[in-house]
């Protein structure tokens, strides 16, 4: 009897631990080989055959197609440089310079990877259309209300995600290190 109860207890506990760990890792997007520069994180290996099993499982579950390593690199930001969550009710400024790339795009998504509805149909910027200051620096205002200059509307949603994609970048996957930045700074300005 004791043996039976013990094995039942063990099996139920094992199923709970195993499935719970799988659910946690896949919803949090755990993957190895992350490259973090400031608020931005990329998984360059996810775009190649060296993709790890966790990233493979996450991609299969969400249905997205990663950017191929010969095409470019995608950097994701869920917080600003200080660690504040990207809240659509606050105003954030993304500014600075980018690593060398033929083109880049910055896109704003909700936490599930959908675009956010807004009246001007603006979901992001490309390197060709951004307004720059002298010296090539730029600043992008992200917030619920219209701003002069580069304004990316956040629609007032609770949590948004920024994705910076660098296309045809001479920075090889192997040589891409934290020193080779700089990635643009992300800072919170005000909250309404």
């Amino acid at each position, binding site marked *: 009897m004791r043996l039976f109860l*013990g094995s039942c*207890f*063990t*099996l139920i*506990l*094992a*199923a*709970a*631990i*195993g*499935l719970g*760990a*799988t659910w946690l*890792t*896949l919803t949090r997007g755990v993957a190895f080989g992350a490259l973090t520069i400031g608020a931005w994180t990329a998984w360059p290996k*996810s*775009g*190649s*055959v060296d*993709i790890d*099993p*966790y990233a*493979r*499982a996450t*991609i*299969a*579950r*969400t*249905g*997205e*197609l*990663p*950017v*191929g*390593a*010969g*095409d*470019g690199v995608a950097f994701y930001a869920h917080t600003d440089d200080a660690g504040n969550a990207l809240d659509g009710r606050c105003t954030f400024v993304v500014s600075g310079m980018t690593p060398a790339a*033929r*083109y880049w*795009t910055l*896109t704003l*998504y909700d936490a*599930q*990877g*959908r*675009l*956010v*509805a807004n009246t001007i*149909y603006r*979901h*992001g910027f*490309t*390197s*060709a*259309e951004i307004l720059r200051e002298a010296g090539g620096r730029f600043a992008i205002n992200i917030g619920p209300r219209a701003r002069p200059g580069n304004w990316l509307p956040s629609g007032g949603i609770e949590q948004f995600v920024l*994705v910076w*994609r660098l*296309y*045809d970048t001479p920075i090889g996957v192997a040589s891409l290190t934290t020193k080779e930045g700089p990635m643009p700074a992300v800072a919170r300005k005000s909250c309404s």
Partner: protein
Amino acid sequence: MIRLALWIIGALLLGGIVHLSTVLAMPTAATQDAYSRLSQLTPVNAVVPLAAPSAKDSTMPFMDPAFAVAVCRYDLSAGALKLRAPLSQAYTSVTFYTRNSVAYYAINDRAAGRRAIELDLMTEEQHAQVPEEEDVTAADRLIIESPTVRGLIVLRALAPEPGLMAMARRALAAAQCRIEAVPTQ
């Protein structure tokens, strides 16, 4: 007490096995992965343009809205595939994914170096059957080996400004992928 600790250690070990096996099984068990989503929208072995992502609807999550996208969902069981994608004015890339969304090859317009990206896609077996002299004479023929019989070719053309989206879509509309019989020895 010791007995309980042993049961718990056993549960932890078993839990680890359950965790690893579910993670490894996920790519084959998933029903909403990119290939499954696209098989409802696209015929096999043909280039089909995808609708631009919008706030209401998007074929896949995290699609880049600055790009026109077309997909060729391939099945190499009937023979090798020939792909031809003309270049758009700005930036064009072609990425190859296996049935389980692993990006195994990507090429962009600069690497292609011509007015179009042209290549042959075949399985390892089909590549082995290509006559050797043909492989040598056509030195500039780009042959890609697909690790799986089925998979996805995703063609992307950048619209640097929203006004250039029509140009990017037109460039992709001229892209072709078709099966051609592998010459037998």
